[in-house]
């Protein structure tokens, strides 16, 4: 069987569908991208019109935030928050949604929140989020500028700074949500030694085991992206999570189909197989 990719490539000339760039994204990627954004717009529209949107399942890590802040308030000790060590990546953007919620709770309970930033460009954003949260909670005077800190852009300098703050301030609750690297276990173990209740979540696959082993609650991978939808229960945001699930189902179906066709191709000794040809349309 002639490969479908080659057949379409022959029709479209020597460059075929290679309209893509250095990242070697294929035509399939564009199709997927178009589907993804079309579905996203459809669900946003549904959410805005008040049509039926599926409910979001419980996420233990996000439910635990209230418990952690409550415990810190009872103990009269601060809550610490680290939005990860990266700039404006998806994990950090997700952390922004959670910082606002935590800051509002902290302001409501008259507790104290310390936010430690590694990236200088993230620092002004977290600062304004926390300030706004105190304002919305009706306690603008309780906001202290020095509690939202920029430490250093050096990875382990930042790690050492956070560990020092955890021990010196005696934090009772620690939130580690964002994109972390090797310092994740240093933070989590320092929090554990200080006896803090720890809620963590990261989109760095290599760091998830460390957080699971060392923290009380851990949000695994994509769960942190659902945080703002979960906390606000905003129908439009929940709609975007549905698209995420649809895409996942398509990819899983392709994986199963690919496995079956690849096995069949190997069995009959064919050089190529259907799903790979489809995915290689570029």
């Amino acid at each position, binding site marked *: 069987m002639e490969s479908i990719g080659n057949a379409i490539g022959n029709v479209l000339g020597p460059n075929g569908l290679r309209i893509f760039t250095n990242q070697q994204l294929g035509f399939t990627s564009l199709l997927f991208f178009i589907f993804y954004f079309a579905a*996203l717009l459809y669900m946003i529209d549904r959410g805005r019109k008040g049509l039926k949107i599926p409910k979001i399942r419980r996420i233990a890590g996000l439910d635990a935030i209230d418990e952690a802040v409550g415990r810190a308030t009872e103990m009269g000790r601060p809550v610490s928050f680290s939005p990860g060590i990266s700039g404006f990546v998806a994990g950090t953007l997700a952390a*922004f949604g959670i910082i606002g919620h935590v800051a509002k709770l902290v302001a409501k309970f008259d507790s104290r929140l310390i936010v430690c930033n590694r990236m200088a*460009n993230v620092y002004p954003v977290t600062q304004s989020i926390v300030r706004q949260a105190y304002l919305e909670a009706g306690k603008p005077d309780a906001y202290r500028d020095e509690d939202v800190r920029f430490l250093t852009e050096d990875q*382990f300098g930042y790690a050492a700074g956070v560990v020092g703050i955890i021990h010196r301030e005696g934090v009772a609750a620690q939130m580690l949500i964002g994109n972390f690297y090797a310092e994740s276990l240093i933070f989590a173990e320092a929090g554990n030694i200080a006896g803090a209740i720890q809620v963590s979540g990261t989109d760095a*696959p290599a760091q998830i085991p460390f957080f699971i082993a*060392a923290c009380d609650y851990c949000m695994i991978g994509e769960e942190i992206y659902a945080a703002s939808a979960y906390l606000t229960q905003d129908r439009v*945001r929940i709609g975007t*999570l549905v698209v995420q699930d649809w895409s996942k189902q398509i990819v899983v179906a392709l994986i199963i189909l690919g496995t079956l066709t690849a096995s069949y191709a190997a069995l009959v000794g064919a050089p190529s197989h259907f799903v790979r040809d489809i995915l290689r349309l570029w």
Partner: protein
Amino acid sequence: MRRTLPLVITMVTGAIMVFRDLFNIPEVAEIVNRYLVMSYTLSTQTAVAIGIMNLFKIHFNRISRKRSDWQFSILLIGSACMMLIMGFLFDLGHNAPVYNWWYQILPVQLGNATFALICFYIASAAYRAFRMRSIEATCLLLSGCLVMLGGVSIGNAMWSGFPEIKVFIMNNLNTAAVRGVTLGITLGSLAQYARNLFGIERGYMAE
């Protein structure tokens, strides 16, 4: 205006970046790399200045109010000023040999020392994670032991099958789980970026 302008900037710059990454147009890529990336660098450096001011403010406060361990704040401000002055003073800036020497003997070594702490923390975290409290924890303990034995030479000396078991666990069971998580993260991050691009999620604007 205060609310609309950041949203418009986010949408326009985001759309330009998506266009650059999807389509193979070198002229667009060059313009984007030259101007957008440069403006990002510029805004980041401005943020660094704001961050350093915050750092100095906190530590000057600590010194003036004689809070606990205020002496360390003097050390921090002194070291930061020293590196800053050296960067301006020497012709090659941060590439000057003297600057590099100080950088290599202080921040790099202190960073290495902090990184080295991880081995102790791995041991203490593993001790808690590997306790046989449930069937899942027992499976984790067994697979962890097999991977560890397969990864060290004493394991190979005990039985030559350990490295093969390790490779099987890492290549099949571990990779399958990690790819599942990675798949979710990739699709989730796409949705996260899209929410920011469309202005549905405005956490970065403190909303």
